[in-house]
């Protein structure tokens, strides 16, 4: 096609063991579109799901997911296994892009509607724990969420799944700023220990 297209490396040997996402990301960093297909199959669901959860708009979620997945392709060589799992690297990008978009949308809406009408209160439309229920492989997270205090759980889920700033979370929960900051931290730390990840 064009001189810009990356060269394809030799394909994977047949009969190879199933490998981790970090191995596939390294292959992607060599310009291998076949490796990207594998990465896409693993991460597109969580990326799109997270964007949908935060943006609450399938069309916008699809746009953000597209940006995230192209960024994964573009920046695959920047992934450093010493600094966390491949999945955490991807989801960090996905979360950041989704939150940036929802804030930009909110800012634009605020500008446009400042004199028109008050923006509807940004309360979550459904209980997060409820959405997590019913999926066998997700019961572990649900169980660990159940081990948090209400304030920890609400602080973490409102920030992570709804994209609120800690100031907005504090306002929604009627809790002091410092408390909310701390609950996000110790809530996540308790989830980390319960899930057995990150250590």
């Amino acid at each position: 096609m064009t001189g810009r297209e990356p060269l394809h490396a030799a394909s994977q040997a047949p009969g190879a063991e199933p490998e981790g996402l970090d191995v596939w990301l390294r292959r992607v960093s060599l310009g291998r579109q076949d490796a990207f297909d594998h990465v896409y199959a693993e991460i597109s669901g969580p990326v799109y799901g997270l964007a949908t959860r935060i943006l609450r708009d399938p069309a916008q979620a699809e746009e953000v997911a597209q940006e995230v997945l192209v960024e994964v392709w573009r920046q695959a060589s920047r992934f450093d296994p010493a600094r966390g799992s491949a999945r955490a690297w991807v989801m960090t990008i996905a979360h950041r892009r989704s939150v940036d978009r929802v804030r930009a949308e909110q800012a634009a809406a605020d500008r446009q509607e400042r004199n028109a009408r008050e923006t509807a209160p940004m309360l979550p439309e459904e209980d997060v724990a409820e959405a997590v229920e019913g999926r066998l492989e997700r019961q572990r997270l649900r169980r660990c969420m159940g081990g948090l205090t209400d304030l920890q759980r609400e602080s973490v889920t409102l920030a992570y799944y709804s994209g609120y700033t800690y100031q907005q979370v504090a306002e929604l929960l009627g809790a002091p700023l410092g408390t909310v900051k701390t609950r996000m931290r110790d809530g996540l730390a308790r989830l980390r220990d319960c899930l057995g990840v990150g250590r």
Partner: protein
Amino acid sequence: MTEADVHTLTGAYVCDALGEGERAAFEQHMAQCPECAAEVRELREVGAVMADAVATRPPASLKDAVDARIRVTRQDPPLTDPHAQEPQAAVPAQRGSAQRRRAAWAIAAVLALVVAGLGWRVADQQNQINALNAQSTQISQLLAAPDASATRVPVTGGGTALVVDSRSRNEVAVSFTGVASAPSGKIYQLWLMTATGAARSVGLMESTPNHPLLVEGLAGETAVGMTIEPSGGSVKPTTLPVMVAALEA
């Protein structure tokens, strides 16, 4: 905020719950604080599980759009590479051949622009080039630029777009082949897009243009794209692009 307080921001940082200024300040702190860096690394693994918990099967259109874009998206070099901050510093040994390839592309691009844009026959190439020069001195200057580079990308719904750009001139020309007219009541809108996804409109087309479009004044944008918008155009894209081409850095 006191120095003791800043360490408690790891959770809010991982949740992207800090405002822009606080986020930047915390990242500065984290660069100096191994404890916070380690804690952020651990807490991000929780975020990955939380993302998995809301996984949703995306529409097939997402895969198509991503595939179309990665075909024309150049990958960043590794950060450990000492030249990582200056990706344009190509290996000297490859410089000559890269330039020749670009020159060849520029010539091919002239012909393709002429054939696609003006609908002329491939025969009598010199006449075509002369005519194109007459039609648009500026496009011919773009095509003659030493760093002019071309790429052809598919357009969703059929046809292709040929994109020729030059960073030294900060210009990009786009011509279309086999692209259907926009649906009734809609128009095609062309955008320049940044790496962060911001888009600025650079033109509206009721139907497929019959000559190349020239966009001047590129300001570091990384891609040119086209969406279908309500007639009159939109302030920002409201639909997924039907065409996206990465611009040569």
